[in-house]
Structures are given as structure tokens and as C-alpha cells.
């Protein structure tokens, strides 16, 4: 099952984490207490130019030095410290969450059109594939992911999510079905600015994972959602597809639907399906993806998982259930159910 929710303020007006915590707890029937998490954009304005790396250490004394060294090799740690946590009766602190504010040294990848992003991606993949007691769970600028094994309220209180402020939030209430629940397997999944929450299962995970590996992305979290974050990064950031087309590549129309399209549409959709065949995601899914300038929700093309969108003034809401949106915003002005495979996209103004 799983419950997902995202809220974005187009005018960048900040919200604290109180309401999303309530909305997520509203969907506790969709979770199992084995994983919950939040992503918040706009939470580190004082370090807005640095990449905020959130890292789970198994043990700070044993595992941290190697990460410090690697970061030192690729750039400069501007600031760092433990992510404050507050003991909860039913939440076992398996990992020590740490954050680095990191500035990569551009000249070390001068051949790349986006050297900073590529350095950070490289560093994240290195740390996460080394299996040396460190796991990077988020790596964007002025944003962060906070997650753990537990119910949404416990995880929120563990990090005091209500003390963070941001203009865009994602939340996830996990019910793991195919792999055991663990801290790294909780959502959101993140790479650079991209964060993903997901309800369902990507049955094409094997194909997608091999495809993405050939571009240097390595899946390490033992769960399918991770691959979605990397696919979106590849298609949108690297291949520069507009978000709408990226979703069309991941959840394309059926061939019999393409057959009855006009010539231009037919050519475009045929080309997309042929080019991105191994990126096509099969199985039931409802997904919300965000980056610093937009939030987007979509489902699989035969709609095997629920997704509801709502609007109120400058705010866009996307969730598994209407009631969760109404819990955050009782006076929501418009509620609708997006069509299967068709994205709902909201963009930050300016």
C-alpha cells in the first residue's frame, strides 16, 4: 500500500512540518510503522549555495573519516554537524544522521557541462556503493530528507520536523511488501534536487536498474523506488526532456492508443517508446516527484494506485487520499483525480 503526499506553495511561502505530519498520520492505514519520511525544500537558506548531504552513519567514530576524506578530495566541507534527533519510545535509533554542507571543486570535473552536480552524484554513488557504514540519503541544495523506520508521527517527532520550514514538502507512510523495512528503504528517495515518494511496486525494476547502471547510477537501497529518482535525473537533468515527456517515457500510452493519434503525436510517442523502452516502468505505482522548482504527480497507465490532486490559492496538493489533503487544507478549493499516466505539474513562480 503506502500513503504519499506532497504540497507546494507556488509563491514560495513557507510552511512548517506540523500539517504534513498530521496529513501523513491520517493515512496510517496505508502504512505498517516500518518506514516514514519527509523531504523539505527551502530549509537551509543560510547554506543555500552548498549541497546539503544527509548521511546515515552506522557509527560516527568508525565510518565518518572515510566520507570526510572523500569530500575533502572533491571539494570543501563548509559546515557539518549531527542532525538533531529526539528519542522516541518506539523508535530505535539504528543510524546516526549527520549533515554536511558541501561545496564541490568545479575544476575537478571541468569537462562536464554540470561539474558540481556530477561531482556530487559521483560522491553519493561512491559512498553508497562502498558499503562502509555510511549512506547518503539526500544531496540537494537548500533541502533535506528526514526518514527512519517508524510511524509518521514518531519519525516526525524524532527529527522535530515541525521545526523545519520550507515551501515544498513531500511525505511518505510506508508499508514495505517485497523487501524488509529499514532506514535506507524509507522514502523519500533523493538525488541532487530530485526527491521521490512512491506507492506501489516497480515490477520492471530489474530492467530499469540495469539501464540506469549503464549511465553510472547504482541502486543500493534494496527497493524499487530508488530507480525512479535516478531515471528522472537522467531524463530531465541530463537528457533535458521536459517533465511531461519524461513521464510519457516512464508511463507511455499503449501502442493501440499511439496508433490512433495524429501523425506528429504518433511520431513523437513512437520515438519516445523506442528510445526509452528500458526506462518504461511497469507495475502499479503512484508517484510524487519534486525538485526545487516544481512538484509532479503521476500514476501507472492503467491506474493501479490512487492519486488525488487539490488546489487552494498558491498551494498544490497531491496525495493518495482526498482526506489527507483536506486534513492539511480544510478549505481546499478544487479536488480532482488525474488521469492514469498523465502528470499533474505545479511550478514555483519566477
Amino acid at each position, binding site marked *: 500500500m503506502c500513503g504519499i503526499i506532497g504540497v507546494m506553495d507556488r509563491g514560495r511561502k513557507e510552511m512548517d512540518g506540523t500539517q504534513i505530519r498530521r496529513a501523513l498520520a491520517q493515512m496510517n*492505514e496505508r502504512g505498517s510503522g516500518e518506514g516514514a519520511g519527509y523531504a523539505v525544500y527551502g530549509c537551509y537558506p543560510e547554506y543555500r549555495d552548498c549541497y546539503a548531504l544527509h548521511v546515515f552513519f552506522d557509527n560516527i567514530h568508525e565510518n565518518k573519516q572515510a566520507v570526510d576524506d572523500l569530500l575533502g578530495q572533491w571539494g570543501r566541507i563548509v559546515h557539518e554537524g549531527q542532525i538533531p534527533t529526539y528519542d522516541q519510545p518506539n523508535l530505535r535509533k539504528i543510524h546516526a544522521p549527520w549533515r554536511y554542507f558541501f561545496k564541490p571543486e568545479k575544476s575537478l570535473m571541468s569537462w562536464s557541462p554540470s561539474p558540481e552536480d556530477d561531482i556530487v552524484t559521483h560522491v553519493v554513488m561512491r559512498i553508497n556503493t562502498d558499503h562502509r557504514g555510511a549512506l547518503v540519503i539526500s544531496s540537494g541544495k537548500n533541502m533535506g530528507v528526514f526518514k527512519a523506520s517508524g510511524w509518521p508521527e514518531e519519525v516526525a517527532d524524532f527529527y522535530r520536523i515541525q521545526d523545519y520550514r520550507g515551501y515544498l514538502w513531500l511525505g511518505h507512510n510506508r508499508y514495505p511488501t517485497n523487501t524488509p523495512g529499514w532506514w535506507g528503504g524509507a522514502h523519500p528517495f533523493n538525488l541532487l534536487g530530485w526527491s521521490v515518494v512512491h506507492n506501489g511496486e516497480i515490477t520492471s525494476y530489474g530492467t530499469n536498474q540495469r539501464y540506469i547502471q549503464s549511465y553510472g547510477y547504482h541502486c543500493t537501497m534494496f527497493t524499487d523506488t530508488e530507480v525512479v529518482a535516478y531515471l528522472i535525473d537522467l531524463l530531465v537533468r541530463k537528457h533535458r526532456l521536459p517533465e511531461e515527456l519524461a513521464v510519457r517515457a516512464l508511463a507511455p500510452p*499503449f501502442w493501440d492508443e499511439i496508433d490512433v493519434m495524429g501523425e506528429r503525436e504518433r511520431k513523437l510517442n513512437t520515438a519516445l517508446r523506442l528510445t526509452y523502452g528500458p526506462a518504461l516502468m511497469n507495475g502499479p505505482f503512484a508517484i510524487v516527484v519534486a525538485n526545487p522548482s516544481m512538484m509532479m504527480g503521476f500514476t501507472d497507465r492503467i491506474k493501479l494506485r490512487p492519486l488525488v490532486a487539490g488546489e487552494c490559492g498558491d498551494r498544490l496538493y497531491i496525495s493518495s487520499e482526498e482526506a489527507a489533503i483536506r486534513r492539511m487544507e480544510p478549505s481546499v478549493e478544487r479536488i480532482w483525480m488525474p488521469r492514469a499516466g498523465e502528470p499533474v505539474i505545479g511550478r514555483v513562480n519566477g
Partner: protein
Amino acid sequence: MGGTMGGTMGGTIRIDAAEMDYTTLNRKIRSAAAGGVSEVILDHVLGQRFIADGLRGTVRLIINGVPGGDLGMFMSGPTCIVHGNADHAPGNTMDGGMIVIHGSAGDAVAHSMRGGKVLVRDDIGYRGGIHMKEYQEKSPVLMVGGNARAYLGEYMAGGLIIVFGIGGGAAVTERGIGSGIHGGEIYIRGPVEDRLLGVGAKKKPFGAAERKRIAPFVQEFASHFDMDGKALLDGDYTRIGPASARPFASKYTWE
């Protein structure tokens, strides 16, 4: 027979469901029904699942708000009037009684329903009426005022679905209508493109006899939502039913 003869004592009870979990809420509903009230009004309902599940008798629930999934599952007899939208699968495996939704509903409305009626004023999501079934005197009815999304009446084994498409546009514009249907009938007001029919579904003639068959249901729908029943009935309907009683016989058996 379990439950009570609701209405014998009459009266109305109001329950404020704000911040109440569904177990507590359902206990209160059951205890009110057992006490013999004829009407229970639930205010500030927000996302509580399983309301009225397995409830018997003739009690009437007025639900103000947005109930959670599986409203009226296994329900046998009562009436639920919802003033708001419903989530997934209202009327799931419902046995008898009625659900009237003054709003829209999510996916899998009337899932596996085996008796009674579900009336939705506005739209429904995907897989409306999936695997509805009938047996002897039990025959469920799902009626939708607005539009229905893809896979309407999937694996349908019995009963009746009517989609009116009120409010402009075709009533159903998405694929897979009656995929794997092997019993029951789907009536859609207005034309339906052939390519939207699912495997095993077939268009059938709609004439005076069929109009007469659906007339009482259409009138009932119209009366619940203050509509002109005659105008609604006068439209052209597309009738869809099973091409055979065993659409997948050759897939699973050798004969």
C-alpha cells in the same frame, strides 16, 4: 438474523466524528443501530474507513464529510447518504441496502458488489463495478451521474451499471469497458467508440424493452438528485454485455 429491526423505535442520533478513529466510530454507529434509532447523522467525517461495514437492518446513515475507503463493505440493508466525495470502493461486496453519494467516488466503486444499489451523483474513478455479481434474487445496481474512467465493469459477472454522462462530453472515453465481462449489463448514455470495449465485451441492441428495463432505476436515480428522470431516460443508450458466458475458456481449459 443479526442486527435489529431499525425504525421500530425511531429517532435520530448525531455523532461528531472529528478526530475519531474508525473503530470507535463504527462501534458508536453499531450501538446506535442496535438501540433501534432509525437515523444516525455523522458530522465532520474525514477519511474514516470501513464505515457501516457488515451493518444490517434498515438504519439510515447521513454522512457529512469525506469518508475513507470501503464504505458499506458487506453491508446488508442500511442506507448511507454521503454529502461529500467517497474514497475507494464504496459498496465493496455489499449485500443489500443503498449508498447515495452527493459527490464523486474513487477507484473500484461497487467492487464485487452482490446486491443493493450504489448511486453516485458525479464521477467515479477506474474499475467501477469491477466483478459485480448476481445470484437468484440478488442483483446489484451501480449508477453514475457523470463520467466513469477506464475498465468500467471489468470481470463483471452480474448486475447492472448505468453511466449517464451528465455535464457534457461522452460518459466514458477510456479503454477496457467490460474487460472479461461474463454476466450483467452496462448501459452508457450516448455513443461509445468500439475501440473502448474490453476483451469479451460486446455491444447489444437497445430498444423499447431495454428502455423499460432501466426506467425504474433511472427514475430512482433522478429522484435522489432532483433531476428530470424522463429527460434522462429519453436519451440514446449504448448497451454492453458479455460476448460469451466464458470469455477466457480457451485460456485456462482444454475442451
